[in-house]
């Protein structure tokens, strides 16, 4: 009985052990899932240490991480919290755990050995508490700096990947800096905790040529690696866009870069192939993210990147080249079956593969009468080839109906393209070959539209060039003379009219003038002068001069001095408005003429001509005087 009781007790104990074993094991597992790490056990005053709490749970996500006490240190930043999840499958059983990693940055302020923590976090209402850590703080300069040549990362623990580089938060303390990639380095303001930078592999391309765009995020390694928010992608309206990475949502860690004096962690946010669709200076816009930093978000943007886009050369451009077909393409085709009945169909699989801007809309088909290509089915595989070239394999599946009997040559599909690497045009070609079509009844498909809109039949084409167009015909209205001629007709009539009237007026005036006393006087005066000049003998000349002077007196003073004595002549002239000097001259000249005319001797011609000269001079003087008098009178009036 005792033995039986002992056996029962033993079984019960075994059951208890078996029942509690996993629970205890689970408890142990829980205890291991809260862990605290510190990146340095000994620091100088002013140095920064990083305390990391990792808490994992199978149920809810741990939250509210707390550092606990931290004498001798001040909190410089944190906690920076990132989340993680792991799935384990052991013996067919799946277990999932979720956790957080919280990091605090502390600055040592006092010499001594201090206990930090214990840090803790909550899983629901349960508080998970980790172990406290101890850190020794010595005075400035007491620690010998140097890195282990065999361990460039400073020997990070599996638990704490940041251990080696958390010691350089401001970028000036590089004692544990990770190796940096010079290719990622750039000149940028290093006072910011994070920034974005974008690059393109080429800035001058032709339409359809690939521009590889990479957006990078530079983050201070002190900051926890957290998910960021993609505020907006780079705007590129004039480009076709194809991603070059399989999973665009996850950014890729590229390494570390030195930016001026500070080290940044670099992540590739995007790697994209852009294909320009038009010419000109096009722009790839800014890409913006928001990165969590404590309780706030910090925004970071890439630069705007201009791309100069030209056309491929026109020289050597093949027929049928479509602008934008740029890259390197290959075509192959498979036709099955090769023997069909008239009106039946055959299948053509065309594979277009290549790199670059592989056209996926439609292929230039060798259309001909009685051969109808139905709408193709398209399947495509996209990805990236060597050197980040975008690659695609497109398969077009055509169903082709042939309504003509005999050997029908389907021709070839040709796709001209421009290869920017070789800077030349090429043509991808796939020969479709001949299909043997047996004569038979053409099965007319039932029209889907009972009343189709039929396109008109065209007439036969013109087989000679028209050539009737003059490239730049000269028109009448373009010639200046046309407008002159147009206006000339009425103008010339008006001119004719005006000039006729003017001519008539002049004629009438002349006629009128010819009949006036003044004109008669003038004529007589001129006759007398002419006679005086033309006379051959001295006496005749003197007599003519006398008549000439008398006519001058009539013409200029309107007085007739013929037959008057010398005194009478002078007084008559004075009455006629002639000045006394000229009146005396006139009187003297007339008297001299009378004396010589009645002298018994002949008068020498020289003397007679001297009298004529005196008469002419007198006339000029009288004319001048009469004009002066006339002018003075007009002025007075």
């Amino acid at each position, binding site marked *: 009985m005792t033995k039986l009781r002992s056996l029962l007790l033993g079984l019960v104990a075994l059951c208890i052990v078996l029942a509690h074993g996993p629970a205890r094991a689970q408890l142990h597992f829980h205890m291991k899932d809260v862990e605290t790490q510190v990146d340095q056990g000994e620091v100088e005053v002013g140095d920064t240490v990083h305390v990391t709490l990792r808490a994992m749970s199978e149920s809810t996500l741990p939250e509210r991480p707390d550092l606990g006490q931290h004498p001798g240190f001040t909190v410089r930043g944190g906690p920076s919290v990132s989340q993680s999840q792991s799935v384990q499958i052991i013996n067919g059983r799946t277990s999932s755990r979720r956790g957080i990693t919280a990091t605090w940055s502390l600055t040592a302020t006092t010499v001594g050995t201090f206990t930090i923590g214990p840090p803790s976090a909550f899983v629901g209402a349960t508080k998970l508490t980790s172990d406290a850590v101890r850190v020794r703080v010595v005075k400035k300069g007491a620690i010998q700096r140097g890195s282990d040549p065999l361990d460039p990362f400073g020997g990070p623990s599996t638990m704490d990947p940041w251990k080696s580089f958390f010691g350089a938060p401001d970028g000036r303390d590089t004692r544990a800096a990770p190796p940096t990639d010079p290719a990622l380095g750039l000149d940028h303001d290093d006072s910011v905790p994070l920034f974005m930078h974008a690059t393109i592999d080429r800035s001058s391309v032709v339409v359809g040529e690939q521009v590889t765009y990479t957006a990078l995020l530079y983050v201070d390694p002190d900051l926890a690696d957290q998910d960021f928010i993609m505020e907006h992608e780079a705007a590129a309206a004039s480009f076709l866009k194809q991603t070059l990475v399989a999973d665009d949502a996850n950014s890729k860690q590229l390494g570390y870069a030195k930016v001026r004096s500070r080290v940044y962690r670099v992540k590739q946010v995007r790697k994209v192939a852009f294909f320009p669709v*038009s010419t000109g200076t096009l722009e790839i816009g800014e890409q913006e993210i928001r990165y969590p930093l404590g309780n706030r978000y910090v925004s970071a943007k890439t630069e705007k990147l201009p791309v100069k886009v030209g056309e491929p050369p026109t020289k050597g451009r093949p*027929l*049928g080249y479509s602008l934008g077909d740029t890259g390197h393409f290959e075509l192959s085709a498979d036709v099955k079956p090769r023997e069909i009945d008239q009106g039946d169909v055959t299948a053509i699989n065309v594979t277009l593969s290549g790199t670059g801007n592989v056209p996926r809309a*439609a292929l*230039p*088909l*060798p*259309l*001909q*009468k*009685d*051969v*109808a*290509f139905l709408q193709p089915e398209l399947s495509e595989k996209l990805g990236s080839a060597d050197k980040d070239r975008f690659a695609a394999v497109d398969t077009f599946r055509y169903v082709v109906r042939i309504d003509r009997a005999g050997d029908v040559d389907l*021709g070839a599909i040709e796709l001209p393209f421009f290869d920017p690497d070789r800077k030349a045009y090429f043509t991808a070609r796939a020969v479709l070959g001949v299909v043997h079509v047996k004569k038979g009844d053409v099965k007319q498909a039932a029209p889907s539209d009972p009343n189709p*809109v*039929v*396109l*008109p039949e*065209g*007439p*036969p*084409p*013109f*087989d*000679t*060039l*028209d*050539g*009737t*167009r*003059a*490239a*730049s*015909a000269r*028109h*009448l*209205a*373009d010639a200046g003379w*046309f407008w002159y*001629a*147009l206006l*000339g*007709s*009425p103008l*010339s*009539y008006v001119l*004719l*009219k005006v000039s006729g009237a003017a001519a008539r007026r002049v004629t009438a005036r002349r006629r009128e003038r010819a009949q006036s006393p003044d004109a008669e006087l003038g004529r007589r005066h001129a006759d007398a002068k002419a006679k005086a000049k033309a006379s051959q003998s001295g006496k005749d000349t003197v007599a003519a001069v006398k008549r000439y002077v008398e006519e001058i007196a009539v013409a200029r003073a309107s007085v007739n001095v013929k037959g008057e004595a010398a005194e009478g002549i002078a007084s008559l002239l004075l009455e006629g408005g002639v000045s006394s000097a000229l009146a005396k001259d006139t009187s003297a000249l007339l008297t001299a003429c009378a004396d010589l005319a009645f002298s018994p001797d002949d008068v020498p011609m020289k003397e007679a001509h001297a009298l004529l000269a005196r008469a002419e001079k007198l006339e000029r003087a009288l004319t001048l005087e009469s004009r002066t008098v006339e002018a003075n009178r007009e002025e007075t009036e």
Partner: protein
Amino acid sequence: MKIQKLLVAPLTLAALISLAATAHATPQQEERFKGAVASLTAGKPEEAVLALEALRDDGIDDASVSFDLGLAYLSRARIAESPGDLGRAVFSFEEAKSLTHSDVLHAECTRLAGEVRSVIAKRRARLGQPTDMEEAPPPSRAFSTILPEDNWAEATLACAALLFIGLVLRDRTSGRVKVASSILAAGSGLLIVIAGLATSQRRSDRLSLEEAIVVADEVRPTDEKHIVLADAPALAAGTRVRVTDRRAGYAEVRTHGQIAWVPERTILSLPRAN
């Protein structure tokens, strides 16, 4: 002798300029044209389209090339219609119409362009869409197209001469002849105004009017900021529009009293009247 030299020099220069301005097809281009015609006759419109488009790209402005290109697009559309085939067919026929001086070809182009437009209109009517594709020109332009520009100009000059004769006779004669001369002068004066305005209209159209044909199957008109005009009907392929401005890949067009912006690639400009 000097006068002869003075006359010969400008005439020679004018002849040279005229020869240089006229684009003549080379024997190779004529050979390519014949090849394109052969392809079209053999029922291979795709090849014909490529060859004829290449000739046009070479600067060959010839009515036969444009006409055959219209036929090639039409033929291609009959076998397997690609987007824009009918619009390009209409454009090619309209272009041939503008280029040719042959009445026969002109009439044939008018007929074919009208038939293709009719097909487009029927398709659109079935979908309940507007079918207007050609806008009646304003009366002044319609009247001026009765005669070619040079005929109007010649008529204007003749009327000017008659006006002069009528006015002169009116002044120098009397009785019935004077009355007849007065009527002649008045009539000529009126005709000068009409023919002169028509000449001016034709000249202005030749120098500044740019017409285009919509070649895309359907174009949504937008405003200046390229925002689609919600109330404006879409422009169908084959629609004739007047281009009044071009900016950054867009063209300002007017048709049926509507002013809108459309992408430049959706229209093709017709050659200006010569």
